[in-house]
């Protein structure tokens, strides 16, 4: 049977039985509006679903009943036993039809016009008054009017007797099928006066089907209290733990006679666990089912074009959680569509497609379920929120100035904030957001806002799976054992003196070279302030490569054991503030073990400190907000001030044994990974006759690499790079204050070309080498980047013009300059890259010139945003290869198109 249909049958059967009871109660308390609206709602639901499923007969009957109930509700009709009876009768008819529906999956043919006419009469108040005022004598005229009605006065029915009758299994070949139903009526109505027997026969329903029997489909599914499932889950969790314990014991005992039964127990437990989990899981799509309709209606109402995208609808989550987030989700989608998106005309004006987009995206991440609701609308109005916050007394002006945009946006979650904001039509956002937030926090979730003015907002809901059985890696550090959820573990690396991987230190900060990348490492021992155990640490360390969002780092541990299925139990309340742990559990050997939270470790380590309220929120936000900052490698070379070079340009750090340096063609080279790597000393007076080891920065490009010999590696810092003094010597960009010291910023390009004259010219540029020189316009507010990229692009065969701002660029456009390709930064003061792109695309002379965006963050979302603004491609800053490749691709594609 169709899932939809069977669900409908189950639900309707349930609703009907509730209705039976409620109607009777209503009859007894006709003035209970709550009861009445509940009944009305139930009938309305039945009617609505019937219409939806294409069941006209059911719909007609339910509709007629609903009309009567509607009048009851509005108070235009008095509730009388007679009227209630008619409604109950129509419910019986519905039941009858449902039974046939269940058996044949189709509505039985038949005519309910008599019943419907009766209902109409009740609606008009005719019958009601009659049967109510004179309940005893059966209303002959009525019955006469309705020929099919069989009158069956039963004035002295014994109520005690009736239920037995009603409960009797009905499907006897009834000579008087009406009887069963009729008697039932009396029981329900509890007013054994004369009543019309339902005209089951005439309504064309098979008498057997009409008999009130249990729906078979309804019997196949049962509703179970979630608490019961919760209990079951807890029991199963305990069972899993016990099983683990038994298996652990078994492992230490060879040839135990328990082996076979335990194996069996193991399997059964696993299956049981899976089964119980399944009972509680539902795809999130269930909660979304109503949204397309909602958005469609809203779109009509508001006169907008809205495209609703739903991704990850099959992401499963706990049913209880699902129920709880259903309303907040609906609310937020409505908000996005209503307040977030501008109307079509405004969108076109700001260079966006007319159709607004609302995207729902659900996925699992690190033991959490993430639900993102994003729109490409106008974004939150920060100024408006600030004003509101001050006028509402939520913060003082000085407090506001000290706040980050993120913190200011949080205000929309404050109770009472929303409505006020709406009255002033600031942005309208945040109606009831406090309720949404409360609901989400109730289930232990968090909600985060990312919004860019003019580009839209994204709400990220993160719901932890509090009670879940997860697979975890058991590790040891300083004699203590910890569990790391397997889901965030990418790989394990063994680092030892004799292995391929060794841990290196940059001013005490451990890093690991892993596949031509430097992987930041976190020492669990340092992080958790564990004491060193004597004799424990030999030279061997294991690195658990962990991923949190987009941030990958290594956790250093002493030993790695097995993976084990664990049940995450929350830690005691007095320990909840420790962010490093997501819970604790009991291992197979009966000992308690703490479960590490990779999110907490990521935020607790190094520079990745996040705002206090958001704790372990995605590091991606951090990188996005730190767009101005970059990681710089500081080192000493050739005396004088410390030198700095962007870390992302450095492929590896090496220690080169001075005695292994050879001379080739008059230049120092070293054999490195089976190849010759040219070495360039920064210090011009460098002599390679020295002994010992020398640190070398390796720059790599394709299969080529060169080493820059330095004296000492100092540190890696995240700094805003502001070149303050222009360089007076070749090889330097200039000087900047880094880590509180005057530092020379190295022009890496200069040294690269020293090693290979054609360093920049060889890769990816062949496609148009024979062509004329391509003119590139580089728009970037940072002198550093202009200085870095100009030589790079020049060497690659481009003619480069640079301007420090989008305004200047547009000036060039007006001045009649033309370029083959424009490379523009995104974050610039004044006009941003996106605005620039929109301006260029919007009918300027350059509207056909390819545009490449250059930005420090290049997530898929940024990419989309860039594309939407009119950029042809998007390249991450520092990604030299990608930039050159993109340029050549863009140019050739453009040429092809032209």
């Amino acid at each position: 049977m169709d899932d939809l249909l069977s669900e409908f049958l189950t639900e309707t059967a349930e609703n009907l039985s509730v209705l039976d009871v409620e109607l009777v109660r209503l009859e007894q308390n006709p003035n209970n509006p709550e009861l009445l609206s509940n009944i009305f709602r139930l009938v309305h639901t039945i009617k609505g679903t019937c219409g939806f499923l294409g069941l006209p007969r059911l719909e007609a009957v339910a509709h007629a009943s609903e009309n009567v109930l509607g009048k009851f509700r509005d108070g235009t009709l008095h509730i009388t036993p007679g009227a209630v009876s008619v409604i109950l009768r129509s419910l019986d008819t519905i039941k009858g039809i449902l039974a046939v529906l269940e058996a044949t999956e189709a509505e039985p043919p038949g005519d309910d016009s008599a019943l419907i006419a009766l209902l109409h009469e009740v609606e008009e108040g005719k019958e009601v008054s009659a049967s109510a005022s004179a309940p005893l004598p059966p209303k002959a005229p009525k019955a006469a009017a309705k020929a099919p009605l069989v009158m069956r006065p039963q004035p002295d029915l014994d109520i005690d007797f009736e239920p037995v009758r009603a409960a009797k299994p009905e499907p006897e070949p009834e000579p008087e099928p009406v009887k069963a139903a009729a008697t039932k009526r009396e029981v329900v109505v509890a007013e054994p006066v004369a009543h019309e027997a339902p005209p089951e026969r005439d309504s064309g329903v098979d008498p057997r089907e009409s008999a009130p029997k249990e729906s078979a489909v309804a019997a196949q599914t049962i509703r179970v209290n979630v608490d019961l499932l919760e209990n079951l889950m807890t029991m199963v969790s305990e069972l899993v733990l016990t099983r683990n314990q038994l298996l652990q014991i078994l492992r230490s005992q060879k040839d135990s006679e328990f082996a076979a039964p335990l194996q069996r127990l193991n399997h059964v437990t696993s299956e049981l666990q899976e089964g119980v989990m399944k009972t509680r899981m539902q795809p999130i799509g269930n909660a979304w089912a109503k949204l397309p309709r909602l958005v469609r209606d809203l779109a009509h109402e508001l006169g907008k074009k809205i495209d609703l995208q739903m991704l990850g609808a099959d992401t499963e989550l706990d049913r209880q959680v699902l129920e709880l987030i259903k309303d907040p989700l609906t609310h937020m989608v409505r908000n996005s569509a209503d307040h977030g998106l501008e109307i079509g005309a405004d969108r076109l004006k700001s260079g966006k497609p007319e159709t607004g987009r609302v995207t729902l995206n659900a996925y699992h991440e690190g033991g959490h379920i993430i639900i993102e609701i994003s729109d490409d609308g106008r974004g939150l109005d920060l100024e408006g929120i600030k004003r509101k916050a001050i006028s509402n007394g939520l913060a003082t002006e000085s407090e506001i100035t000290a706040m980050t945009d993120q913190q200011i946006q949080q205000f929309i979650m404050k109770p009472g904030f929303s409505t006020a904001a709406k009255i002033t039509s600031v942005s309208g956002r945040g109606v009831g957001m406090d309720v949404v937030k409360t609901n989400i926090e109730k289930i232990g979730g968090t909600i985060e806002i990312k919004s860019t003015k003019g580009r839209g907002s994204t709400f990220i809901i993160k719901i932890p799976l509090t009670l879940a059985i997860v697979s975890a890696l058991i590790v040891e550090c300083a004699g203590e054992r910890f569990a790391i959820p397997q889901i965030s573990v990418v790989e394990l690396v063994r680092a030892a003196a004799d292995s391929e991987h060794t841990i290196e230190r940059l001013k005490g900060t451990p890093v690991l070279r892993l596949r031509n990348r430097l992987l930041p490492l976190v020492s669990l021992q340092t992080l958790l302030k564990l004491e060193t155990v004597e004799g424990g640490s030999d030279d061997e360390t294991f690195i658990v490569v962990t991923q949190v969002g987009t941030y990958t780092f290594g956790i250093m541990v002493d030993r790695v054991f097995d993976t084990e299925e664990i049940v995450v139990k929350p830690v005691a309340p007095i320990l909840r503030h420790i962010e490093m742990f997501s819970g604790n559990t009991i291992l197979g050997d009966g000992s308690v073990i703490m479960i590490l939270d990779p999110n907490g470790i990521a935020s607790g380590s190094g520079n990745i400190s996040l705002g206090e309220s958001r704790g372990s929120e995605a590091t991606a936000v951090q990188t996005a907000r730190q767009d101005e900052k970059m990681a710089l490698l500081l080192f000493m070379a050739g005396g004088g001030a410390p030198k700095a070079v962007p870390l992302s340009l450095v492929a590896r750090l090496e220690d080169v044994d001075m005695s292994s340096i050879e001379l080739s063609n008059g230049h120092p080279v070293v054999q490195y990974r089976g190849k010759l790597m040219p070495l360039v000393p920064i210090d011009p007076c460098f002599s390679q006759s020295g002994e010992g080891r020398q640190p070398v920065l390796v720059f790599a490009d394709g299969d080529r690499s060169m080493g820059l010999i330095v004296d000492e590696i100092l540190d890696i810092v995240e700094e805003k790079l502001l070149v303050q003094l222009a360089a007076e010597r070749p090889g330097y960009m200039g000087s900047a204050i880094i880590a509180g010291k005057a530092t020379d910023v190295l022009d890496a390009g200069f040294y690269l070309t020293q090693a290979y004259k054609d360093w920049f010219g060889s890769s990816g540029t062949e496609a148009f080498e024979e062509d004329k020189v391509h003119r590139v316009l580089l728009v970037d507010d940072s002198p550093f980047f202009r200085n870095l990229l100009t030589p790079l692009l020049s060497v690659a065969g481009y003619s480069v013009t640079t301007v420090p701002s989008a305004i200047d660029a547009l000036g060039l456009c007006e001045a009649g300059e033309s370029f083959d390709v424009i490379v523009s930064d995104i974050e610039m003061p004044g006009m941003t890259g996106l605005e620039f792109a929109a301006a260029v695309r919007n009918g300027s002379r350059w509207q056909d010139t390819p545009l490449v965006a250059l930005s420090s963050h290049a997530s898929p979302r940024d990419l989309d945003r860039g594309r939407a603004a009119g950029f042809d491609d998007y390249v991450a800053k520092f990604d030299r290869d990608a930039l050159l490749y993109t340029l050549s691709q863009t140019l050739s594609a453009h040429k092809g198109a032209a």
Partner: protein
Amino acid sequence: MSNAKLPVKKGKSEEASSGGSMDFVTMTIANQLFGIPVLQVQDVLGHQRITRIPLAPPEVAGSLNLRGRIVTAIDVRLRLGLPGRQKDKPEMSIVVDLRGELYSLIVDSVGEVLSLSTDDFERNPATLDARWREVSTGIYRLNNQLMVVLDVSRLLNFANLEAA
């Protein structure tokens, strides 16, 4: 006579007011006798294998597995501002339930259960160490020594401690 006196006493000692007498599980820490209302005590344990919890407050000794439930162990000595226990000294634990969570209070030794008359109850002297005053509801005068009544919920209220 004593009947006439009792209501007055009761008024004075709100927490321990359930009538003529109360039962306490007694324990000693650094030779001082302490008591916890017997109904709050779930278990008495000997030495247990405890998993340390890094970064936890110093008073939290770790956690342990009590018949499949995870119990947080609190070193009462440290909580009361006393020096830590020497490694070789024996220890015992009293397991208490606070709002559905189990806590194991590590003490030096656990004694008998005493049924004490509320007549012997007295509020904390004002001069008592602030740390003790904070976690104690009062003092019972026994024949040869004094027993400090510990209030479990206050004993486990670390937030207060950090604020202080």
